[in-house]
C-alpha cells in the first residue's frame, strides 16, 4: 500500500460510495465536465453519467434545497460548495429546512454538503474561511472535519451513509499537503468518535482539521524539552465526542484547545465549557485557546501568517501550561 493524499482519499471515498449505492449522486458548480475547482470529481462524469454527476447553475440555495428534496425522495445527494465561504449563500436552506425537517416530521434528510475550507493558500477573506461553528450551533446538522487521508475517506463514506444532513469540511491546505495510508477495502469512520493522535501525560491538546498537524509538530517540539502532549483529534464536530474530550482533559489536567477558526464564538468555547463543567475537578491550569484572531482572513502572506495558528504558537502555550 502506498500513502495517498487527502484529496485522493476524498475522491476514492466518493467513487466507492457511488459504486456501492446507486442512490448516491453529486451536484454542484463545475463538478461534472470540469471535475470540480479542486478536481476531486474528475472522471466521475465519464464513469457515472450525467444523471449522477450534475453541473448546476451558480446558485447555492438551489443546490442545497434541491439536495434536500432529492434526499426526501430517497436519494443520497452529495453537494459541493465550490468554497465553504459560499455556504452562507445556502445558509437558510441548511439551518431552517435541512436541520429542522426530521425533528418536525420524523422524515430523514440524508445529504452531504462538501465544504472546502481553511486558509494558508493566500486566498483572502472569501476563499479561506472556517465557518464550522455556525453549523455546530444548529441542532439537526452533523458536522465532520477530517485531518488525515484515512479519516477523509472514512468520514465521507460515513457521511454519505448517515441518514442526516452532514456538512463535510475538507481542508484545502491538506488536499495536497497531507499524505497517509488508508485502510484497505471498504470502511467508514464512525461519526461522533474522536481519535487520540498522540499520547502524553503532561498537557492535552484538543483540536481538529489542519490544526492536528500543527499540534503534532508543536508536541514534537516540546517533547524535546520533556513535555509530553496528549492530542485529541475531534474528527466529528457535531455531535461532539464528549466522553473523549473529558477523558483527554482529565488525563493531564491541562488543556489547550486549538482551532483555525476565529476565536470568539468558535468551537473552542464549547469545548472549554464541556471541560470546565465535566472535568473541573481534574483541572490544574487555566484552559487555553490557540485560534485565529477575531478578524476576516487576510490575503497577504505576512498578514495571513500572523493570522493563522501555527505550531510555534501552540508550543508556546504548551510550555506555559506545563510550567503551571
Amino acid at each position: 500500500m502506498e500513502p495517498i493524499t487527502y484529496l485522493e482519499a476524498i475522491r476514492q471515498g466518493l467513487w466507492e460510495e457511488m459504486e456501492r449505492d446507486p442512490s448516491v449522486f453529486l451536484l454542484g458548480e463545475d463538478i461534472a465536465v470540469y471535475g470540480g475547482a479542486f478536481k476531486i470529481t474528475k472522471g466521475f462524469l465519464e464513469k457515472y453519467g450525467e444523471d449522477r454527476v450534475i453541473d448546476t447553475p451558480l446558485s447555492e440555495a438551489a443546490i442545497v434545497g434541491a439536495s434536500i428534496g432529492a434526499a426526501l425522495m430517497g436519494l443520497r445527494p452529495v453537494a459541493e460548495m465550490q468554497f465553504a465561504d459560499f455556504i452562507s449563500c445556502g445558509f437558510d436552506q441548511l439551518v431552517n429546512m435541512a436541520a429542522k425537517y426530521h425533528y418536525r416530521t420524523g422524515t430523514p434528510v440524508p445529504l452531504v454538503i462538501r465544504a472546502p475550507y481553511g486558509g494558508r493558500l493566500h486566498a483572502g477573506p472569501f476563499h479561506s474561511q472556517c465557518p464550522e461553528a455556525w453549523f455546530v450551533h444548529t441542532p439537526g446538522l452533523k458536522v465532520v472535519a477530517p485531518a488525515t487521508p484515512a479519516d477523509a475517506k472514512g468520514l465521507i463514506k460515513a457521511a454519505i451513509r448517515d441518514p442526516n444532513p452532514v456538512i463535510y469540511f475538507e481542508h484545502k491546505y491538506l488536499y495536497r499537503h497531507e499524505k497517509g495510508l488508508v485502510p484497505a477495502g471498504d470502511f467508514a469512520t464512525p461519526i461522533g468518535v474522536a481519535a487520540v493522535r498522540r499520547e502524553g501525560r503532561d498537557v492535552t491538546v484538543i483540536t481538529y482539521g489542519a490544526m492536528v498537524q500543527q499540534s503534532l509538530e508543536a508536541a514534537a517540539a516540546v517533547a524535546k524539552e520533556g513535555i509530553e502532549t496528549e492530542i485529541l483529534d475531534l474528527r466529528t464536530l457535531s455531535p461532539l465526542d464528549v466522553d473523549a474530550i473529558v477523558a483527554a482533559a482529565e488525563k493531564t489536567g491541562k488543556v489547550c484547545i486549538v482551532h483555525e477558526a476565529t476565536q470568539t464564538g468558535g468551537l473552542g468555547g464549547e469545548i472549554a465549557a464541556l471541560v470546565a463543567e465535566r472535568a473541573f475537578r481534574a483541572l490544574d491550569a487555566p484552559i487555553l485557546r490557540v485560534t485565529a484572531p477575531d478578524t476576516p482572513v487576510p490575503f497577504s502572506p505576512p498578514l495571513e501568517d500572523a493570522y493563522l495558528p501555527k505550531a510555534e504558537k501552540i508550543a508556546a502555550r504548551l510550555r506555559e501550561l506545563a510550567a503551571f
Partner: protein
Amino acid sequence: MVDVHGLSTDDLLKIYYYLRLTRASEDRVIKLYRQGRVFGGVYVSNGQEAISVGSAYAFAPEDVTAPSHRDLGANYVRGLTPREYFAQYLGRATGPTRGRDGNVHYGDIKRGILCFISPMADLLPVVAGCALAFKIRREPRIAAGYFGDGASSRGDFHEAVNFAAVLRLPVLFICNNNQYAYSTPLSRQMAVPHVADRAKAYGIPAVIVDGNDALAVYAAAKAAAERARTGGGPTLIECKTMRMRGHAEHDDASYVPPRLLEEWRAKDPIQRLERRLREAGVLTDAGEQGIAERISREIEDAVQFAEQSPLPDGGGVTQGVYAV
C-alpha cells in the same frame, strides 16, 4: 353534465366537497382562535380554496406537493384528515408534527406532502430537488410547489425556477396571487402586472388562470402536469385571487380597500362552483345538504378528537432531532 377535462360527476362533487371542507375547517379554527383555544397564529385560505383544491386534484397519488400556508385544500385532497388539522392547531401529540410544529406546518412524505416551513419560497428549491430525483430515476412523477405573490420576490424563488428550467425538471410552480403579501400590495412587491411575467426570465411557459374557478385551476394544473410528466419541463401557473381576510387572524387588514374585498366576495369560488354544478344538475338540494352535514359531522368529530387528544409530553422534547 359539466364536461371538464374528463372529470366525472363524482370528481366534481369531490372537488366541491373539498372546497367546503376547507372553508368550514378554517372557519372553525377562527372560532377556536377567538375562544383562545388555539396556540399561536391562524392562517386561512378563505376565498382562495379553489387554487389548492383544484390543482391538487389534478395530481396523481405518486406525485409530490409542497403546499404553502394558504393551501389547506391541497393537503386535504392529498389525504390530510380534519382530525390531523385540528390536532395540529391545538398543538396535540396526535397532529402531523406531534406538537413540534404548529398551525399550517403539516406534511407527510408518505402522502406526497412536504412539510411547510415559514421562510417564504424555501420549499421551491426543495420541490425542484424532488423533481430532480424523479428525473434521475426516470419516474413519471411530478412535483408541485405552491407560493404567494410576495414569495416570488425572494432569491430562493429565482434560484429554484431557474434550476428547474435549466435541468428541465417536472415541476409546477403554482402561485396564489392574492394581491397582498401581509400588508404589502402587489405593486410594492413587483413592477410587473403578473407574477406570470416572472416566468419569462427562465424560458418556461406560464399560464394565468382565474384562481377562483376550481375547474379552470384543475384544467391548468392537469395540462401542466402532463407536460411535465412527459419531459416538457416546468410550468408556472399564476392563479389570480384575493386574500379575503387579514394576513393572519390578528390582522384586521384595514390597509385593504373595502371595495376590493366586495368585488371579490362576489367571485367566491365555492358559490361559483356550486352554481355551476346546480345548473348542470350535478348538485341537488339534497346533495348539497348531505355534503354540508357530512362536513359538519367530520369537523365536530375532528374538533372533539383534537380536544381530547393529549398534548405532547414535555419529556420528549429532545427526541428525534436526528434520524437514527
